[in-house]
């Protein structure tokens, strides 16, 4: 079936000159009339093939030349690293927010950064400034969000001396009258914060899960409920409560050290006890020696762990075979460890195992296979037989000369 073609009805008045729009665009205005009369206007046309290969020939078959011109690769270098952010100076703040980081070992941990981040949020809500009260000197406090640093004099620096610390903190609170005091909800910070709150007669917000400028969420009733309220004077924040400050640099100017406050000390610190590495839960262990399928000399492995004072761990195949108990398994189906140093012996580095050690600071790996994945993750990788390395390292640790 076909429809009859629609035809234009014939105009009255005979034939008409047709326009050439392309010629009108390219020709000067006064030539339009002429172009209408002579439509064959010569225009220069591009020759793409001539531009591509001036020497002639098919470029796709010429393998001698590089595929991409040299100047193009130099143009694609990485942009220069951004300049360091400008220091933010808060000269006359409306109020103070006191942050008391733990500074375990004199360094700023992730929890301490979250505390300073939470203090930053509370201070930025109304033109305040953050004062970090520190008992031990630490670096990077300005980059972590502190406008001022208040060094507190406390006779025993790393000992358990909560009474002296509270006396110093109460003097600081009396001097600065901070709107908020923020502690980490860690073992040390939880103790200090609750002591200060009880001493000042304040009801603190404990186990704070989220901090915003005007609302906070804190856990209660075991883990069952959350309390939502305005931020009180004293807050004890969990590690995920606030994002750490990044990309900004605050002044971190040191205030004058407060004079040491005297108080009655009922507690004396008799020092650290030696750690039993076998009793430490694997997730908390500081130094871990881990065995994989490449370890067959188990007496040497246990001797090395004892000589290092390290906790023993293993990969999944080893625990499957029963060489070490299941609670010593590291990886996705075992424990996620966060050791300072992880010594992987005869472990190839399955993705599930690498997932379990992603939070470790330093990884040393010994493996016979030079292509093992763990050697790419390791800070120090050694291609050697673990059966020979284990006794040599144990002998070295016992003070003997290696063979």
């Amino acid at each position, binding site marked *: 079936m076909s429809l009859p073609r629609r035809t234009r009805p014939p105009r009255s008045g005979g034939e008409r000159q047709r326009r050439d729009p392309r010629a009108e665009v390219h020709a000067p205005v006064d030539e339009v009339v002429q172009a209408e009369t002579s439509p064959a206007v010569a225009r220069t046309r591009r020759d793409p093939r001539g531009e591509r290969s001036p020497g002639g020939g098919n470029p796709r078959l010429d393998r001698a030349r590089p595929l991409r011109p040299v100047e193009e690769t130099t143009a694609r270098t990485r942009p220069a690293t951004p300049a360091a952010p400008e220091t933010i100076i808060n000269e006359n703040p409306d109020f103070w927010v006191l942050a008391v980081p733990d500074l375990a070992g004199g360094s700023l941990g992730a929890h301490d950064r979250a505390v300073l981040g939470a203090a930053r949020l509370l201070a930025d809500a109304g033109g305040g400034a953050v004062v970090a009260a520190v008992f031990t000197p630490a670096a990077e406090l300005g980059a972590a969000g502190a406008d001022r640093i208040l060094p507190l004099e406390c006779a025993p620096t790393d000992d358990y001396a909560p009474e002296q610390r509270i006396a110093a903190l109460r003097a600081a609170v009396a001097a600065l009258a901070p709107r908020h005091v923020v502690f980490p909800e860690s*073992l040390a910070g939880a103790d200090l914060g*609750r002591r200060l709150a009880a001493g000042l007669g304040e009801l603190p917000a404990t186990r704070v899960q989220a901090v915003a400028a005007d609302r906070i969420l804190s*856990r209660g009733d075991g883990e069952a409920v959350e309390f939502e309220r*305005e931020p009180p004077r004293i807050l004890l924040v969990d590690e995920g409560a606030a994002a750490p400050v990044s990309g900004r640099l605050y002044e971190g100017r040191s205030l004058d050290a407060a004079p040491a406050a005297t108080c009655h000390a009922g507690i004396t610190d008799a*020092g650290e*006890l030696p750690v*039993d590495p076998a009793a430490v839960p694997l997730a908390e262990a500081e130094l871990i020696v881990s065995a994989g399928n490449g370890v067959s000399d188990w007496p040497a492995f246990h001797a090395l762990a004892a000589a290092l004072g390290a906790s023993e761990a293993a990969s999944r195949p080893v625990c499957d075979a029963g060489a070490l108990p299941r609670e010593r398994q590291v990886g996705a189906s075992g424990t996620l460890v966060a050791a300072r140093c992880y010594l992987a012996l005869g472990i190839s580095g399955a993705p599930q195992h690498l997932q379990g050690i992603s939070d470790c600071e330093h990884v040393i790996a010994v493996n016979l296979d030079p292509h093992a994945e763990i050697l790419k993750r*390791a800070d120090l990788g050694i291609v050697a037989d673990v059966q020979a390395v284990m006794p040599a390292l144990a002998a070295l640790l016992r003070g003997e000369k290696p063979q």
Partner: protein
Amino acid sequence: MTVAIAVLVSAGRHPGSGRARRAPNDARALELALALAGDDVTATGVQVLHAGDPAQPALRAYLGMGIPALHVLPADADSDILPPLLAALERRRPQLILTGVRSECGWSGGCLPYLLAESLGYTLVSNIDAIDMDPQDGMAALRQVRPRGRRRLLRAALPLLATVDPAAPAPRQNAFARARRGRVIEEASGVAAVAAVPPGTVHPARQRPRRLQPLPAAGSAADRLQALTGASTGSGRVLEAVSAGEAAQAIYDYLAAQGLLAAAGSAPGSVPGG
């Protein structure tokens, strides 16, 4: 040993099933007190105190641990337990008060021991897992829990309030017959009940996702992906074709540079177990 000990216990709640039970943390505190008192529990002054509902059946589990009686200060669920506990402890003035770090239900903020110590004027030591007493010089030796499995030895003067860490030795089982036999003694607190106002509006708890590391503002796509996944690649060197002695020396030097051999210096054989 003739040191008066008070143990403050709370009614717990199982986090999975929601059933009432003895609070494991407070049971650990009672376990330390019973170990300190020795076998003759009745002869010594181990007094176990609870503020709350005397008819709570979960309290019988503490009696089942071997104590003859449990003193209960009747209090409503929505009243403040600090005034009656303070009054009861003022009457007794024990030399040592042991309790858990925080309760399993209620506000469970863990502030009660601090408020009690402040009001009673006691020395407070937090998160202990072992205690020994020397009543002659009025001092206690305490072992305090620290991060990464470390422990610290402290000496503190009596009278003392100590909170017992969840890492303390596991409590003994409760015996059914002893739980039946033990007495729950209701004790009039003698103070007016004060209503406890919850600190803010109450919502059911929500599991929060883990906060990711802040992404670097500049850097390649590989850098950003690495920051997101956290799979940091080692920046280290790989030694090939080395002897066992050279490999051991390289590991030794690396550990020494990180300061990890100081801990290994102490003879591991001399470490006291448990």
